[in-house]
C-alpha cells in the first residue's frame, strides 16, 4: 500500500513512520484502558463497598501505619543508594572502555529478568547469620537479614536497573567534548561535574530514582523472604495487603493498596512537574 492513501501525509505535517494520529492514539487509549484503567477501576470498585469511616479505620490501623513507615523508610534508603550507585554505574558503562563491559551492561537487567522470589531467597541465604555475607557482617554488629536493612537491600536489588537505564541514554547523548570544554575554560574536575554534567543528568536521575522508589513500595516477592515479617518492626505494606487477601477481605486489601497507589502517583506527578520546570529553566532562559 502506498502512502498516497493518507491525505495528510502529503500536507504540512511531517511524515511519520507509524500510521496516522487518529489510529495510533486510538490504539494507545484502548491499550491503556485495558492494561491500566480497567484494573484501576476494579480496585476502586472494591472500595465502593466501604464507608469513609471504615476506609479510614483500615488504613490508619496501628500495625498498617507501622508498615508504611517500614516500607517508605526502606524504599527511600534503597532509592537514594540506587541513585548514587546507579549514576556511578551508568557513568562507568558510558564513559569507559574495559573488558567485560558488555557483560556488565547485560547484568544490569538481571534484577528484571530474575523472578523476585528467587532474588529474595538468594539474598536471605547470603545475609542470614550462617550465610557468606552474614557471617562476615554479624561480628561487626550489622545484622542485615530479618531487619529493615535487609528490606532495603532487597528493594535496592530489584530497582537498580531503573536508575541505570534512565541515566545511561542521557549520558550517552552528552558528548565528552562538553567535559573537555568545561575543563579548558578553567573548571576543575569537581566543578565540571557539578556545574556542567550533573545539571544535564538531573531530570533522568530524579526520574530513575523516583521510579526505583515507587517500584520498591510495591515489591513483595523479593522482600518477604528476608524481612522476618515481625509485627510493627519488619512488616511491609504489601504483606498487609496479602494478609487481607488471605482473609478474602478484598475491600480491606484495596483500601491499603489505594494508599500505596496515591503515594506513588503523587510522587510521580511531582517529579513530572518538577522536571517540566527544570527543563524549561535549563533550555528556556538563554533564548
Amino acid at each position: 500500500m502506498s502512502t498516497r492513501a493518507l491525505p495528510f501525509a502529503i500536507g504540512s505535517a511531517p511524515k511519520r513512520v507509524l500510521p496516522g494520529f487518529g489510529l495510533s492514539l486510538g490504539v494507545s487509549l484502548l491499550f491503556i484502558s485495558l492494561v491500566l484503567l480497567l484494573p484501576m477501576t476494579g480496585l476502586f470498585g472494591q472500595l465502593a463497598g466501604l464507608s469513609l469511616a471504615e476506609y479510614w479505620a483500615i488504613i490508619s490501623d496501628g500495625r498498617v501505619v507501622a508498615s508504611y513507615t517500614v516500607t517508605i523508610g526502606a524504599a527511600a534508603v534503597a532509592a537514594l543508594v540506587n541513585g548514587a550507585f546507579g549514576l556511578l554505574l551508568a557513568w562507568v558503562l558510558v564513559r569507559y572502555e574495559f573488558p567485560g563491559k558488555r557483560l556488565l551492561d547485560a547484568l544490569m537487567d538481571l534484577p528484571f529478568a530474575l523472578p523476585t522470589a528467587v532474588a529474595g531467597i538468594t539474598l536471605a541465604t547470603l545475609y542470614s547469620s550462617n550465610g557468606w555475607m552474614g557471617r562476615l557482617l554479624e561480628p561487626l554488629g550489622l545484622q542485615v537479614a530479618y531487619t529493615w536493612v535487609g528490606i532495603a537491600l532487597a528493594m535496592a536489588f530489584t530497582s537498580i536497573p531503573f536508575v541505570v537505564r534512565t541515566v545511561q541514554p542521557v549520558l550517552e547523548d552528552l558528548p565528552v567534548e562538553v567535559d573537555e570544554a568545561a575543563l579548558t575554560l578553567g573548571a576543575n574536575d569537581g566543578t565540571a561535574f557539578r556545574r556542567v554534567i550533573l545539571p544535564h543528568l538531573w531530570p533522568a536521575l530524579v526520574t530513575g530514582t523516583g521510579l526505583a522508589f515507587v517500584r520498591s513500595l510495591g515489591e513483595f516477592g523479593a522482600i518477604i523472604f528476608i524481612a522476618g515479617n515481625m509485627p510493627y518492626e519488619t512488616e511491609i505494606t504489601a504483606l498487609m495487603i496479602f494478609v487481607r487477601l488471605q482473609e478474602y477481605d478484598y475491600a480491606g486489601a484495596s483500601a491499603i493498596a489505594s494508599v500505596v497507589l496515591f503515594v506513588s502517583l503523587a510522587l510521580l506527578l511531582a517529579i513530572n512537574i518538577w522536571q517540566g520546570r527544570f527543563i524549561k529553566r535549563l533550555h528556556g532562559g538563554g533564548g
Partner: protein
Amino acid sequence: MTLRPLFQRSLLAIALGAGLAGPVQAAERELLNSSYDIARELFSAINPEFIAHWQESQGEEVAVSQSHGGSSAQARAIMQGLRADVVTYNQVTDVQVLADEGLVAEEWQQAFDNNASPYYSTTAFLVRKDNPKGIESWDDLAREDVRLVFPNPKTSGNGRYTYLAAWGFADQHFDGDEEQIRDFMRTFLRNVTVFDTGGRGATTSFIERGLGDVLISFESEVNNIRGEYGSDDYEVIVPPISILAEFPVAVVEPNAERNGTLDLAQAYVEYLYSEEAQRTLAGFNYRVHHEAVVEEFADLFPETELLRVEDIFGGWDEAMETHFGSGGLLDQLQRR
C-alpha cells in the same frame, strides 16, 4: 508452480497433525486436583496408583493433573474460574469458602467419611539434636530462653493450627482463665524469631538459616523434614496435647459436571480412603483411619490428646472471626 508444493505440504502437515493428535485426544479424560502447597510429593505418589486402579477396575486410561499453592490462594483461583474437579486442602475454611459460593455441595462434610477428611495430622515440634532446650510441651515454648519458628497465622493455615493448639493447651492448663491464657499467648508469640508467610518458608528459616530452637508445623511435615535433612540432627517432639488438623476433600461439582468427570472425581476422592491410598498417606507421615494401616504404623504416631477446633473455638468460622480477623485476638495479642 510455486504454489502447488506448498499446498501439498500443508495438506500433508494437516494430515500428519490430525494423525498424531487424534488418538491422544480421544483417549483421555483428565482430572484436575487443586491441592495445598506441601502436598506435591504426596499426590505425585498417589496419582499413578489411582490411575492404575482406575485402569484395572474400569479399563479406562485417565490422567490426573495437580495444581499446588497456598490453599487459600488455590480456593480463590477456583472462585475466579480455575476448572478444578477435586479439591484436597489443609484447611476446612478454604473448602467452606467454595461451599459458600455454591461450587461445593453445602453438606460437603457429610459427603465422605470422617468429616470428609481421609487423613489427618496434628501440630508437633522439631528440635535440634538431643533437644538441648529440653522441650516437651507447649509451656516450654513460652520460656524466656526459647526461640520459635512457625509461619504467620495471618497468612498460613499451618500457622493458624499452631496458634490454636497453643491456645487450646493454655485453655486447659489455666482452667479457662482468660487473663492467664492471654499472658501465655503473648509470651508465646513474642518468642517467634521469624514469621514466614508459609510452612516451607519456616522450614527454610529453621533448617537452612539455623534460626530458632523449635520449628512448629504439622506432625507429617516435621517427620518429613527430619527424614529429609537427617534424623541424627533433629528430633520430633509430639506434645501430650495438640490440635486435630483435618485435611478436607471435596468434589467441585459444577466444574466436574462441565468437564464430564463427575464419576471420576467421586471415585478419586473415595480412593483416598482405600487401604492402598491410606498406606501411602501413612508413608508420608499422615495419620489415617483405615484400621489395618493404623495398626501397621502405630509406632510412628504417639498417642496424644487431640483437641477439636469445633469443641474449643466453636468451629472455624468463629475461630477465624474472633482470633484471626482484622482487630481479632491475634492482632490484640501482638499489639504494642
